[in-house]
C-alpha cells in the first residue's frame, strides 16, 4: 500500500475518522498531565521565580508555530509536484492553527519578557523573525480567502509558503545566525551539555510539547476533513446552479 493512496479524499476521510478519537484522547491526557504538572508541581527557578512556569506554554507553542509552517511547506510542495488536493487542503487547514500557536508564543513571550528583561518587546532578531512569521500566516490565510478558484489559490499560497519558510527558519536559528539580542538560544536541545534544564522542568516540558504536537495533529485532521467537505459542498452547489 502506498502513502499516496491517502491523498484520495475518501481514503483520507476513512482513515482520519478512525484515528481522530485516539488522537483526541491522547491530546487531552498529555495536555492535562503536562500543564497540571508544570503549573502546580514544579518549583520556582532560583533566578526567574514563578515565571519559569511560562516555559510550559511558550516553548511548545513556539516550536509548533515553526513546525506548522514546515508542515505547510511540505504539503504545499506535494501539491505543486503531485497535485494532490488533500495536501493543499491540509496546508490551508494548518494555517489558522499555526497562527494561533504563533500568537500564543508572542503573547506568552511578552508576558515572560516584561518581568525578566524589563520590556514587553525588543527588535531582537528572533522576536522580529517571529513577528514576520505571524504576518506571513495572516497573508497566507488572506490569500486563500481572496482567490476564488481553489486550484489557483492553492498554487499562489504554496509559493507564498515557500517564501515564508525563510522566516520560519530564521525564527528558529536567528540567535545562532546573529548571536545577539535578548532572546536566548534553545536550551532543551542542550540537555546533557553544560547548561541543561533540570529534570524537574524538563520532563513536564516534554509532556507539554507532546500535547501541543498532538493538538496540532488533531486540529489539522479535523479542519482538513471540514475543508474536504466544504470543497465537495461547493462542487455540488455549482452543479446545482448549472442544472
Amino acid at each position: 500500500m502506498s502513502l499516496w493512496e491517502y491523498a484520495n479524499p475518501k481514503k483520507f476521510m476513512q482513515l482520519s475518522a478512525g484515528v481522530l478519537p485516539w488522537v483526541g484522547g491522547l491530546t487531552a491526557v498529555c495536555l492535562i498531565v503536562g500543564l497540571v504538572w508544570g503549573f502546580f508541581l514544579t518549583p520556582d527557578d532560583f533566578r526567574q521565580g514563578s515565571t519559569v512556569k511560562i516555559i510550559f506554554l511558550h516553548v511548545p507553542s513556539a516550536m509548533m508555530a515553526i513546525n506548522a509552517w514546515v508542515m505547510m511547506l511540505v504539503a504545499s510542495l506535494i501539491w505543486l509536484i503531485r497535485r494532490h488536493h488533500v495536501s493543499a487542503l491540509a496546508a490551508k487547514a494548518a494555517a489558522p492553527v499555526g497562527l494561533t500557536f504563533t500568537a500564543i508564543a508572542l503573547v506568552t513571550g511578552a508576558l515572560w519578557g516584561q518581568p525578566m528583561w524589563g520590556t514587553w518587546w525588543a527588535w531582537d532578531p528572533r522576536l522580529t523573525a517571529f513577528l514576520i512569521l505571524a504576518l506571513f500566516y495572516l497573508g497566507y490565510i488572506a490569500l486563500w480567502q481572496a482567490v476564488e478558484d481553489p486550484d489557483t489559490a492553492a498554487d499562489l499560497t504554496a509559493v507564498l509558503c515557500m517564501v515564508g519558510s525563510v522566516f520560519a527558519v530564521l525564527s528558529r536559528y536567528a540567535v545562532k545566525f546573529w548571536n545577539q539580542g535578548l532572546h536566548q538560544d534553545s536550551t532543551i536541545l542542550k540537555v546533557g551539555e553544560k547548561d541543561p534544564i533540570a529534570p524537574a522542568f524538563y520532563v513536564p516540558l516534554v509532556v507539554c510539547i507532546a500535547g501541543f504536537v498532538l493538538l496540532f495533529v488533531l486540529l489539522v485532521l479535523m479542519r482538513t476533513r471540514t475543508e474536504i467537505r466544504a470543497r465537495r459542498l461547493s462542487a455540488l452547489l455549482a452543479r446545482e446552479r448549472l442544472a
Partner: protein
Amino acid sequence: MMPDLGRYAVAVLSSYGATLALLAALLALTVWRGRRVKRQLAEVEARQARAPTEGER
C-alpha cells in the same frame, strides 16, 4: 492547591489564561465550522438525491 506565584502572579496567570482562551476559541471554531459544513453537505446531498435525474425528466 494554588501554588504561591509571588510577585509574578499576574504574568504567569495571564499567560495561562491567554493560552487556554486562544486554544479553546480555536477548538470551538473548528468544531462549529466542521458541524455546519457537514450539515450543509448532508442537506445538499439529500436534496440532489431526491431531485429527478436527466433521464427521469
